[in-house]
């Protein structure tokens, strides 16, 4: 700037233009530089002669800046007649990028338009913006990660809900099965039992008696199997065994159970030793079931080891 031709005092307009603390340019409508001050020339490392009449303003920008100049700056100057605070990087002769802020006004002088342009260095603003951009990028990355995690969580929850719905479906199905078993199968079995009773009173020959006995015992076994199946299903569903507790005479109950079992295991001697009062609270069905299972188990063992005695208390 010491090369300034303005020799007059500090108020001289020429010196002010040339040495202003900002870059000042005048360009044609197409961007061709018509005038440029020394400040700007110093900033970009070029002589005025390299720029005036030879270089367009946009040629001094980065490629991104040049696209922006054509897609935004140009139309704005045509329609609005001005732009302000446009942030563009100017490329120094040595290739360095110089962050700058631009203001420009379009004026029509005697039929032809010129653009009057002021440029300010914005190094610090550039650095600050760069930091902001980096910080935002980091924040966006964190947000993306967070959203990814949330999505994975939602997917896992959806899978859990799906599995739960499947389990509920299975449970519902099993319950329906149980209803079928308990009502729809038990009913015909009780009809068979009742009919067998009626037949027993109608004077059968020995062959028919034997057949009827098989009918009755098969019916009893089918009824027992259904009861076991119900218990098993309840166990699988997790509702637990059904137990109806009532006041019972335990000794009478055991007598009743053993009477049946003696018929079922005619080769085994079953002895009932009563101890204590016998009156208690419990489930008659479950106790009969328990005794039946124990006796069946013991009977099988006895068959293997003839003569042995087993006790149950």
């Amino acid at each position, binding site marked *: 700037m010491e090369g300034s031709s303005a020799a007059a005092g500090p108020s001289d307009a020429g010196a002010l233009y040339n040495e202003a603390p900002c870059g000042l340019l005048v360009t044609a409508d197409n961007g061709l530089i018509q005038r440029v001050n020394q400040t700007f020339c110093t900033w970009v490392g070029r002589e005025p002669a390299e720029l005036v009449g030879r270089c367009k303003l946009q040629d001094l920008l980065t490629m991104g800046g040049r696209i922006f100049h054509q*897609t935004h700056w140009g139309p704005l100057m045509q329609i609005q007649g001005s732009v302000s605070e446009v942030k563009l990087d100017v490329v120094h002769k040595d290739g360095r990028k110089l962050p700058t802020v631009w203001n420009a006004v379009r004026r029509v002088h005697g039929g032809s338009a010129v653009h009057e342009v002021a440029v300010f260095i914005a190094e610090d603003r550039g650095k600050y913006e760069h930091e902001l951009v980096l910080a935002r990028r980091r924040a966006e990355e964190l947000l993306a990660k967070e959203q990814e995690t949330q999505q994975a969580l939602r997917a896992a929850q959806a899978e859990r809900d799906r599995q739960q719905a499947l389990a509920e479906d299975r449970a519902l199905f099993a319950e329906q099965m149980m209803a079928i078993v308990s009502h729809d199968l038990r009913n015909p079995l009780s009809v068979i039992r009742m009919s067998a009773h009626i037949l027993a009173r109608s004077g059968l020959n020995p062959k028919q008696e034997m057949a009827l006995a098989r009918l009755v015992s098969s019916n009893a076994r089918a009824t027992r199997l259904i009861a076991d199946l119900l218990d098993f299903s309840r166990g699988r569903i997790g509702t637990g065994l059904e137990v109806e507790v009532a006041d019972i005479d335990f000794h009478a109950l055991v007598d009743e159970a053993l009477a049946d079992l003696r018929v079922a295991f005619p080769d085994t001697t079953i002895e009932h030793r009563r101890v204590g009062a016998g009156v208690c609270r419990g489930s008659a069905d479950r106790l009969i079931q328990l005794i039946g299972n124990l006796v069946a188990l013991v009977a099988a063992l006895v068959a293997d080891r003839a003569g042995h005695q087993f006790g149950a208390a």
Partner: protein
Amino acid sequence: MPSGAADGGWRVGVDVLKRNNVHVSGNGPATMVFAHGFGCDQHMWRLMAPNYEDRYRVVIYDLVGSGLSDLACYDKARHGTLQGHADDVLEIVERSAQGPVIFVGHSVSAMIGMLADLKAPGKFAAQVMIGPSPCYINDGDYVGGFERGDIDSLLETLESNYLGWSSSMAPAIMGAPGQPELSVELTNSFCRTDPEIAKHFARVTFLSDNRADLSRLQTPTLILQCTDDLIAPQAVGDYMKRTIPNATLRLIENTGHCPHLSAPSASRAAVDEFLGGLAH
């Protein structure tokens, strides 16, 4: 009211005319639809569109994400390709056009118009493409004018320029010399842009490649090419002329990407000549 032409079920209940800030004017047996390019909005057509109002029904609109369009309708999936904008065009045409439709698309909207045409063959009587480019990035022998890094450089520039979004571009600051007719409404919306949408739209625009579609376009097409246009160099105009079956190429002596603003009379003359030729 007919249902939307393409993918009409998208965002049920959205009024297409509001969504795209559609303005209809003029009278005529045919309709001209003007679509602005990347960076600005429908006000780009102020030196062009009004001249056709005495002969044509004139439709101007803002691309979703630009100008005074409904920004809530900007859908990064739908508008993640130019086809989404093309589907918008078909909905706008369905709602607002009458008679044969002439689509005038600037820059990226030229390709949007072509994609709409290809999706609804016969819907358009003519395509006018101002400064079009089917692919901005150089690829082998193909000269698009840019390298991938240039687009990143543009995204950086966009990142530090919020433009009208923060209202810093309002000309009141600069005194708007010689432009007394400008309305406040215009100055506040022109080039207004949501920074996030601007970046996304810049990517969609400058990374698009529609070269393979050009040869399928059967509609009579005018390519208006500026002699000195950074965004669409002459080589691109030549390539398009060679590839589109029914294309006319007209050069306009002009520096920049917007001849309809900086050389409006030459642009109008070229369009008039083309439209006159269609009639015969």
